[in-house]
């Protein structure tokens, strides 16, 4: 009950934040030079004033800015994100078409990175000062310091082009006509490189965070209490240290989980992954306002949603946090 009212309150608050973000983005995006009518007219290979004026009218760009804003916000309130005139489809359709691909990619990367990161971080902390620790620390640092797109390119070069082990682009073998389990397998194959590349960077972050957090917790009094009880070191690490050390990891994971929905522009670009990130970038270059705002709206909503989820998860893990 308490939890429900907490969530309700947070949701109401979130709605205001979202609306503010929508308005902010609206003006931010309109500040850019050029508009979609010009891009489309350009692509048509010819443009006269009548044509551009037609497009502007069609897009509603001939109206005063505040009116456009009202229309847009009005739409958002009724969960209508508008129509992408450029792509000639409702924005919601376009986004939800792409969302699964992004979720598969970033979700997998997310899970890989957390599992591997926490595992390696914990291992390093447990072996602090030994070579295992040094190795993990150095590897994590190197991945943390390497441009993502560079690793992606190198990975394609090695595993896809040179060795031919894995597909280097796309989400599935188009036209292969797989279905059922075969299709799943096919998608999985395509997933390996992009998910790993994306995951490695985040893995590095989690490994570093977990290690630092574990070391901090290891210094705490209750760990000494646990030792004084005669508990074996393995149990101390698992039950006492790790559970406490995981709290900051949860916080970070919550922040990142939200941002993952925004897609990974770089990874999706290099691996030709049909996701949200790329959709956003294209929409920006083409000044597809409604689509761009739609992507921002959805990804901001997801950030807020995941913040909420994190808060709730936190209360499950940490009894000290009370829901306000």
């Amino acid at each position, binding site marked *: 009950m308490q939890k429900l009212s907490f969530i309700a309150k947070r949701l109401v608050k979130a709605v205001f934040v979202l609306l503010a973000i929508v308005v902010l983005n609206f003006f931010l995006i309109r500040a850019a*030079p050029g508009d979609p009518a010009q891009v489309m007219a*350009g692509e048509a290979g010819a443009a006269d004033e009548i044509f551009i004026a037609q497009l502007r009218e069609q897009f509603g760009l001939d109206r005063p800015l505040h009116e456009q804003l009202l229309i847009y916000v009005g739409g958002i309130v009724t969960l209508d994100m508008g129509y992408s005139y450029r792509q000639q*489809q409702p924005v919601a359709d376009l986004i939800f*078409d792409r969302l699964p691909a992004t979720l598969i990619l970033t979700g997998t990367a997310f899970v890989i990175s957390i599992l591997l990161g926490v595992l390696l971080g914990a291992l390093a902390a447990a072996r602090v000062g030994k070579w295992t620790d040094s190795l993990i620390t150095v590897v994590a640092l190197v991945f943390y310091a390497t441009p993502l797109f560079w690793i992606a390119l190198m990975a394609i070069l090695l595993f896809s082009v040179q060795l031919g082990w894995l597909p280097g682009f*796309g989400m599935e073998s188009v*036209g292969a006509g797989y279905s059922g389990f075969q299709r799943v397998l096919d998608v999985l194959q395509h997933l390996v490189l992009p998910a790993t590349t994306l995951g490695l960077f985040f893995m590095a972050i989690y490994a570093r965070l977990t290690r630092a957090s574990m070391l901090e917790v290891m210094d705490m009094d209750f760990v000494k209490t646990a030792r004084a009880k005669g508990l074996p070191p393995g149990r101390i690490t698992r039950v006492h240290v790790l559970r406490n050390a995981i709290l900051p990891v949860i916080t970070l994971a919550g922040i990142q989980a939200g941002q993952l929905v925004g897609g990974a522009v770089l990874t*999706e670009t290099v691996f*030709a992954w*049909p996701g949200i990130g790329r959709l956003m970038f294209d929409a920006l270059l083409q000044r597809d306002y409604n689509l761009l705002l739609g992507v921002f709206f959805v990804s901001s909503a997801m950030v807020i949603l995941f913040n909420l989820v994190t808060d709730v998860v936190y209360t499950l893990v940490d009894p000290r946090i009370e829901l306000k």
Partner: protein
Amino acid sequence: MLKRFCTLAALAAATALTAPAALAEEPKSGGVMNVVIQPEPPGLMLGVTQNGPTQMVAGNIYESLLRYDTDLNPMPSLATAWEVNEDGTVYTFTLKDGVTWHDGEPFTAADVVFSADVFLRETHPRLRVSLQHIESIEALDDTTVRFTLKQPFGPFMGIFEVGTMPMVPKHIYEGTDFKNNPANNTPIGTGPFKFAEWERGSFIRLVKNEDYHVEGQPYLDEIYWHVIPDAASRAVAYETGKVDVLPGGSVENFDVQRLTELDNSCVTGKGWEYFAPHAWLWVNNREGPMADRRFRQAIMYALDREFAKDVIWNGLGNVPTGPVSSKTRFFDDDVRQFPHDPDKARALLEEMGYDGTEIRLLPLPYGETWQRWAEAVRQNLQEVGIEVEMVATDVAGWNQKLNEWDYDLAFTYLYQYGDPALGVARTYLSTNIAKGSPWNNVQGYANEEVDRLFAEAAVAFPDENRQSLYTEVQQVLVEDVPVAWLLEIEFPTIYRCDVKGLVDTAIGVNDGFVDAWLDR
């Protein structure tokens, strides 16, 4: 004499019908073709959207009355024969019998009238310009259409290309809001392939039109158009055998050589004759040093256009002599020549007293090739002492800057559509100086002589008269250098050598894969 021309053309067309380009081998039916499409088209309704990617896919779904061979001669498509009267003002087309739309409805002359006179007049700005020369379009019966012109219009026979005048179904669109008609999502044409599905961000699938009006064609069962946003990934896709065809412009030029050296890999620069993409630098004639003709000539001397062609374009294309592409009709190279000569450039700059004013250079935001080209041009100009600052923009920003004339030098390339009256004159006519379009006389060049010559040439009849007028205008323009011509571009189409019948007309892969087959 005119009559003879037409009959001959019809005859040639008849042979083409029964035995397309490659006579040597018997085409095999069946198979799936994988092609790259970049960028993802915004829609596939060719009547509503006329950008490159749309046409490349929709060229398989829609057709027009004619096709053109690589010398820009008309060939039959939905029209099987055509006639013109003595003074070149009335054209009569005979349509093919028994053609049906993908939904089974018959294709008739009424569709032609609706398409040209109603639908495209509203939605197709480029065609609209040509339609201004037409008095009336009438369906004489179900298979005969008559176009009556106000006066002779030289390029008239060139406007029946599928991207310029696609036939759209009257029974679906009549009386609707063309641009927002939901039917645009499931395009219906008469073409060799039917729309099947579109996984946005991923692929478009077309399937064979079993009821196609040419017996035995098309040969392919399916075509997949793959959306791959990154150029390097597109190259990999071809390399790993995932796609069979890389249409022009889908990989960076630096990749072309490597890709063509692969096994079973062929390349062709053909298939662009109709468009004849012509690249140049807009030079803002209104402002600063660019207003001085000597400055513009100095730019021409400073540019190492051969280097750009060889290094950036892999040796494909030609260095142009002037405004008209050598592929386009009425081209003449009897004009002033501008070889790479930095000393001459410096001398001209000195003579005019160039004070080192910084010049802004706007590259075309179409990828790495254009970026490199801009860098090379900047370096060329800096070497003769012109200060250049490059300004980065995206497509929207580029359009805006050109529309507002907010630039000093800017890259561009434009299609010539086979005839100077369609694709060349628009750039130099002083009547075309107007803000709001990046395709008109953006550089602000005004010369009454040029205006007059272009105007006369467009309506002159027959072609000999047009040629002499166009030769003269080319000479004048090259002397004035209103823009700095860079390259006649040939976008290389890279394909598996066992893909046959791929590029055999003047618009190449944009003409659909009606003749393509796989030798596997």
